[in-house]
């Protein structure tokens, strides 16, 4: 299977990569793990003239807790996320997404930055990240800006990333005590599968055990992963219990905008949004109770 002809560049620093991007603009594509770009080039969907590899840039490889934030370099691989104690301890919903992405072989190549940047509506990492309220750091020759991940996705394959920008880092506030989150996805198979529906939920309790903050994020049921706002409204101000989670699930179902496709019909996806919302809320609650 032939790849289009292109020139290959391997800058050592983000600054150098930004310089190249500002020069080549839309003619260039970044490559990290390559699990998305390589397939799209082989299928002749994309034919960039310049390929800028960022997989050798060491400053994109960090995964640290710094003060009240968890900082994840865009070049961290999905396999690294699966094995990280920081992720398992602080961000288990992200860990669940990482463990369900692709196959072990794909996870060794694919990066968190690529899974966000490719903006597939069924991607495994964005729902968990959005449930934790993640921000992305975008760098160009002109400087650095940050954006809530909620505002980053514009549609399938489309993001707020400008042609001269690189997604360099993901920033997440350390989740407060009394909060929990979970991610559940369903597909036809357990590995190497595109999700039918995926949901991540997060909520935080105040000292009286009342839900003071909640985020429910749905994937595969719209042009981009998005928040189930009416489900969140139902949760906030209430005490968690199964009946409440059921009501939130119904609201999330109503918020979803699935389409019929060859994977399944919209009716099924809509009803699964409800089921997965309940399951993720239940798991999140179990995680909160296990902290006590």
């Amino acid at each position, binding site marked *: 299977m*032939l790849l289009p002809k292109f020139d290959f560049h391997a800058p050592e620093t983000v600054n150098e990569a930004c310089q190249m991007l500002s020069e080549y603009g839309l003619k260039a594509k970044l490559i990290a793990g390559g699990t998305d770009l390589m397939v799209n080039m082989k299928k002749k969907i994309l034919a960039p003239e310049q390929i800028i590899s960022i997989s050798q840039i060491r400053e994109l490889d960090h995964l640290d807790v710094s003060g009240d934030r968890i900082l994840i370099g865009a070049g961290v691989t999905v396999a690294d996320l699966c094995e990280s104690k920081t992720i398992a301890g602080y961000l288990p919903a992200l860990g669940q997404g990482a463990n369900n992405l692709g196959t072990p072989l*794909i996870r060794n190549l694919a990066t968190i930055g690529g899974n966000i940047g490719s903006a597939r509506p069924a991607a495994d990492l964005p729902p968990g990240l959005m449930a934790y309220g993640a921000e992305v750091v975008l760098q160009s020759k002109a400087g650095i800006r940050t954006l809530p991940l909620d505002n980053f996705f514009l549609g399938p394959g489309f993001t707020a990333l400008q042609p001269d920008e690189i997604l360099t880092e993901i920033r997440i506030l350390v989740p407060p005590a009394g909060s929990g989150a979970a991610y559940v996805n369903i597909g036809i198979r357990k590995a190497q599968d595109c999700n039918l529906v995926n949901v991540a939920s997060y909520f935080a309790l105040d000292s009286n055990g009342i839900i003071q903050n909640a985020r429910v994020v749905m994937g595969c049921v719209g042009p981009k992963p998005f928040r189930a706002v009416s489900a969140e409204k139902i949760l906030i101000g209430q005490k968690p219990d199964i009946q409440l989670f059921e009501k939130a699930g119904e609201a999330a179902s109503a918020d979803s905008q699935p389409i019929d496709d060859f994977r399944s019909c919209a009716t099924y996806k809509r009803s699964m949004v409800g089921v997965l919302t309940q399951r993720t809320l239940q798991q999140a609650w179990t995680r909160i109770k296990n902290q006590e």
Partner: protein
Amino acid sequence: MKKLIRLTVNDREYDVAVLPNQTLVDVIRYELGLTGAKKGCEMGDCGSCTVLMDGKPVNSCLVLAMQAAGRKIQTIEGIETENGLHPVQEAFVQKGAIQCGFCSSGMILTAKSLLDKNPNPTEQDIRKSLSGNLCRCTGYQHIIEAVKSVTP
């Protein structure tokens, strides 16, 4: 235009002139003549092109050769020692885990990397780690049994 890169494959260094758009699997097979890694789907689905890159199994059809410069690559040809076949290779022979052989090099390399990391995996661990390697003969049961037989 071709560029000269240095590839470390099976502990041997090769200076190879490669095109920017050549994949690692193509360079390994056609430039180095190591045909153990197969070309199946070429889309990262089947795992027949599996090689170990810095000890981790990856789909070499999704890696540009130039991205592999400076990395440590191991192919099926490189895991045999002077004492004979690698224990996982030997187990595949003994347990009848090889049918047509197309998936075998990938299966064996993925299983080797699992056992290097976790010498005593459960059956579930083995199944999960091999989930990116497809066997077109559907000989999965013997493959799982072969890997299990290498564990203590």
